[in-house]
């Protein structure tokens, strides 16, 4: 599926931009990855005795796969609400730099913060990657409506997958579980690699992969944050040095 050209009349109404956002759900393999991940989350919730309504509500409200897996498995293993909240909070820190880097691409001088609240809620790995890929083909003043369409479309797919996984839980073979868990790192790696725009992005990806095993030796509980900030800063440093030279 190709989006219409930037000066096409189909971008003139926000409703049509919303519809193009929804249709873009079918243009990415990440939709399949999300589908499989949420199939797994539905099955996990069933096996840990959460209700169907609860796990569907978590898909809408939390909207971050890894956070939901952590939430369900920590609560399911008998941890307290406070312990679960801390584990989820640490895993969610990555959302902050994602939101900060995407929002300036959605804004126009007329945009108020409240216009961005719903779009901000939808930002997680998939939407972050897709915004960088698709926004150059979407006129700036239609990007918020487009994001709402894409976010609601992806959320609908995930709700369906959550319910399906919940229903099928007892019948999923274990090898499928391993295949589903391998999908996320494969797809995240390849989609990030394809989106790398400049040297700093490539370096951040490579160094981020390489530094995590070292940081994990520290066993701090925020290892990902330590390796991420150091790798990102080194990558930026190289970029800065080359720009100057």
């Amino acid at each position, binding site marked *: 599926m190709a989006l219409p050209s930037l000066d096409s009349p189909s971008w003139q109404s926000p409703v049509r931009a919303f519809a193009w956002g929804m249709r873009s759900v079918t243009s990415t*393999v*990440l939709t399949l990855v999300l589908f499989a991940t949420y199939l797994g989350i539905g099955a996990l919730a069933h096996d840990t005795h959460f*209700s*169907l*309504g*609860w796990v569907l509500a*978590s898909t809408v*409200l*939390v909207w971050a796969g890894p956070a*939901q897996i952590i*939430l369900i498995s920590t609560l399911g293993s008998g941890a307290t*609400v406070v312990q*679960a*909240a801390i584990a989820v*909070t640490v895993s969610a820190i*990555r*959302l*902050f*730099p*994602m*939101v*900060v*880097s995407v*929002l*300036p*691409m959605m*804004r126009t001088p007329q945009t108020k*913060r409240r216009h*961005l609240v719903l779009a*901000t*809620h939808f*930002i997680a790995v998939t939407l972050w990657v897709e915004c960088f890929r698709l926004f150059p083909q979407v006129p700036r003043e239609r990007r918020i409506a487009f994001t709402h369409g894409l976010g609601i479309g992806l959320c609908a797919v995930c709700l369906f997958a959550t319910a399906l996984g919940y229903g099928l839980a007892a019948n999923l073979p*274990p090898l499928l*579980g391993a*295949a589903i*868990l*391998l*999908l996320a*790192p*494969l*797809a*995240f*790696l*390849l989609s990030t*690699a*394809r989106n*790398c725009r400049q040297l700093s*992005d490539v370096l*951040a*990806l490579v160094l*981020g992969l390489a*530094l*995590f095993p070292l940081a994990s030796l520290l066993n701090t509980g925020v290892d990902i*944050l330590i390796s*991420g*900030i150091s*790798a*990102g800063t080194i*990558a*930026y440093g190289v970029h800065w040095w080359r720009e100057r030279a």
Partner: protein
Amino acid sequence: MSEFIGDWQALLVLVVAGFLPNEVWRMLGLWFGGGVDEGSELLVWVRAVATAILAGVIAQILVLPPGALASVPDGLRYGAVVAGFAVFMLTRRSIFAGVVGGEVVMLGGKWWLG
């Protein structure tokens, strides 16, 4: 409705331990990122950090695999990702081909190892 969701305590747990810990970071990003200029150098750094944190998440799943993935031997897990990346490069950066290639190597390896 209460049958479907569970009691109000279950919903409260979801809000306190699931919704708020995620939404706090998103809304902080909205508050902070609302004023950053698109072409600014700060954003290059922020994007590099976001990319590197995501790379850390990828590495964590591979190095310290959760659940059923732990049943796949280390060498096979890394091999599958390297194979997926090779297919991705050979197919002019097709994510779909790369993902399928990696999964096929993992499933084939598991089958072959028995």
